[in-house]
């Protein structure tokens, strides 16, 4: 049940974002003062903003940026982090220790701080946001995959593989990786949700997407001064973010229950 609705909401969001990359109901790069602060109508289902841009089109384009940045950052984290963590454990001893210590150091850098450093160096932008959130995600997945992998390396089926003459790296790939994949997938959903929130924060404070690129965080920032006269401009992007994060975490939660390895062992 929860799987279905959360997957449905996610699909709608992702399709909306994908479509927006090529087409939006109205152009959003032009200024049409005549239409500013329009109320919802058949032409503008959610009304317009202070420049007369269609709010629905803005939300779709913003979603493309926000979800795209979040997805890219999560992929960086999953890819680099889980391989690092798994290999650290496979090589054991110093390798494991080194990966964990470096993870501890990197984990102390919130994405916002990495983004601030990057922005100082290269100027702000969406790519910086991807890198900053991605870097923050690496130790998250390194720690998680190492912590869950350690147990599997000690289980008797890993010993059976060693007795067959298999190397630790091969055991990592054949035996450990498939078993920790579910927990990584679950965490990936959580981190995707966190990344959506982080992207909003970064864009809001001006370290993420730059004009003319639209993102949900930037929509919040632009609407801030207008809250007394046009609160709806702030409400829509907030709702978009909340629904996305809610659906993603709900989806992840269902994954966790469905893919729980303990269920496999119990059966």
């Amino acid at each position, binding site marked *: 049940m929860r799987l279905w609705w959360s997957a449905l909401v996610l699909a709608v969001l992702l399709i909306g974002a994908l479509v927006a990359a090529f087409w939006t109901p109205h152009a959003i790069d032009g200024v049409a003062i005549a239409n500013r602060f329009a109320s919802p109508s058949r032409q503008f289902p959610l009304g317009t903003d202070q420049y007369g841009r269609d709010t629905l089109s803005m939300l779709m384009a913003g979603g493309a940026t926000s979800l795209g940045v979040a997805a890219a950052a999560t992929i960086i984290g999953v890819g680099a982090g889980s391989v690092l963590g798994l290999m650290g454990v496979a090589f054991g001893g110093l390798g494991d220790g080194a990966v964990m210590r470096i993870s501890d*150091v990197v984990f102390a850098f919130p994405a916002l701080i990495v983004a601030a450093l990057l*922005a100082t160096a290269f100027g702000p932008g969406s790519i910086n946001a991807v890198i900053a959130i991605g870097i923050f995600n690496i130790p998250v997945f390194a720690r998680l995959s190492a912590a869950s992998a350690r147990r599997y390396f000690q289980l008797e089926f890993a010993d059976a593989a060693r007795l067959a003459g298999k190397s630790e790296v091969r055991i990592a790939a054949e035996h450990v990786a498939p078993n920790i994949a579910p927990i990584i997938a679950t965490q990936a959903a959580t981190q995707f949700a966190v990344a959506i*929130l982080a992207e909003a924060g970064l864009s809001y*404070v001006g370290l993420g997407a730059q004009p003319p690129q639209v993102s949900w965080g930037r929509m919040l920032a632009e609407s801030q001064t207008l809250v007394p006269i046009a609160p709806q401009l702030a409400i829509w992007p907030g709702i978009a973010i909340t629904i996305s*994060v809610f659906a993603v975490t709900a989806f992840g939660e269902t994954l966790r229950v469905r893919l729980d390895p303990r269920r496999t062992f119990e059966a």
Partner: protein
Amino acid sequence: MWRLKAFLKRVGVLAATLIGASLLIFLAMNVLPGDPAEVLLGMNASPEAIASLRAEMGLDRSLPLQFADFVGRALVGDFGVSATYGVPVIDLLAERASVSVPLAVLSVVLSVMFALPAGLYAATRRGRPADRAVEIGAQVGLSIPNVWLGLMLVFVFAVTLKIAPAGGFPGWGAGVLPALGALLLPAVSLAAPQAAILTRIVRAAVAEAMDEDYVALARAKGLSHAQAVRRHALANAWSPIVTIIGLQFGFLVAGAIVIETVFSLPGLGRLLFQGVAQRDLAVVQGVVLVLVATVIVVNSLCDAVADWRDPRRRAAIPPLASP
């Protein structure tokens, strides 16, 4: 003896992590395109002037030497002088911390005050409607971006009801109550997602402990359900709860930076953005160093508390008796 060893090991790891983090920051500042001396003097400065400033700033030395110097100065609170303000960075940090630290403490307190009872309540009513309600509430809570929550709180309490300031900070000189009043809405918007996450952790940790045999044994000893939860399940849940508070601290710091912008609070976050916007390297470096070091130290402290709460974790070398 092994306790001292464990303590020394912890301090060693903490020091190594701090040095590692400062090395990262130092390298990041050094690979920045553009020479700090050039930035300070502007585009039209003569090469000679730049060279002499470089020497003055110690930029002509080898990187390891510069790093040693950087760490040494940071240890005595010397973070250089701000290019835009013309005052020592440490003074700026101290001034801004008087806003950021109370904000962070206030939101941690608020989130724990909410999460503990809510999580406990849900854990003792597992699977019932009350539990589902807390779970859904928590999930909504962590889905709401705190920027937006801040904006909405401003809209409701400042714009519509006019019972709270929309932003700004009167300073502690204006009295404790007005200052705290100015921090309340920011702290609530900061605490909400933290409280949601913590509620789930408390619920999960207590619920997990409740399934253990020792809680059943406590009932078999004659404790009531509530007593068994309080004395046995909660006692075992403390360790994971404190660990999570530590891990969440980084998010709190990041959130605080954003929330300070929403409410125009003159804290460390605002200082960081001014530094980034002005390319004031000393300020950026100082703020980043202080924030990252705080995250590391708080994390380590929470870990220490969690270990102290759980004797199994405390014992680095368990003294096992013969059967």
